[in-house]
């Protein structure tokens, strides 16, 4: 999977590494900005009130 991505990135190893880094940062951004805030209320880690159904 990751090997496949690596082989399909253009350029030499350095360019590939740079593009990979940008891709990773983009994924982390999307996770922190959209995915985790959405997932958090669905998980039972942060209810602090009583009678919080």
């Amino acid at each position, binding site marked *: 999977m990751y090997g496949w991505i690596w082989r399909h990135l253009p350029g030499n190893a350095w360019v590939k590494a740079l593009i990979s880094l940008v891709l990773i940062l983009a994924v982390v951004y999307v*996770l922190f900005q959209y995915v985790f805030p959405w997932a958090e209320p669905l998980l039972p880690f*942060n*209810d602090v009130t*009583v009678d919080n159904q």
Partner: protein
Amino acid sequence: MAATADETEETTDASEPVPDPAPRRRRPGRIALAVSVFGELLITAGVLLGLFVVYSLWWTNVIADRKADREADKVREHWAQQQESGPGALDTQDGIGFLHVPAMGDGEVLVEKGTDADVLNDGVAGYYTDPVKATLPTTGKNGNFSVAAHRDGHGAKFHRIDKLEKGDPIVFETRDDWYVYKVYSILPETSKYNVKVLSPIPRESGKKKPGHYITLTTCTPVYTSRYRYVVWGELVRVEKVDADRTPPKELRD
């Protein structure tokens, strides 16, 4: 391709001919491929969970503290303006005051209305409007000033609630007054359905008569929400805020 050709030449020189120098690492078997994809998925899942921990325990704090600081500045500014233009109505929109709990460390916790996630996630404490409505100390009436805040993440304002002991002060600051409470009872673990802790007279704390109480609730143990941690305090005295906003002696030492 050129490289493979060179290699074949060398090996043929040395010994018997190699029948078919299949290009290495090109076509792994179907099973090998499936196993490697599965492994990569597992690694991905692990990294994802790790990132979620980073998000919940660090990033939400960064966001919430930033937001809470901004809100707090707004409230203070608001107070300063009102002081010049005479008394104004209590504005519950931006927060009603600040909690100071020396046992939980320096700093103040802005108190806003409501205990919904979108309020508490801004790094503030919220006073209950549901299921039992909190009695605000500013009303001067008997009752229970019940507030909740996050134990971890989103500012984690009540993270060190377990450091509070009987006799410790909890001070609530409003525009005009310092309300000094003293902790008299602690319930280290209770069910999340135990709404009686919010009652105007919280009997579980040992009180039978009406009075001015404060109740702090958060989740326990840390990093989970299985139970609730409850701390009760009783109003000791009310001090007028002076021109320099000199804090009461409980906050000075």
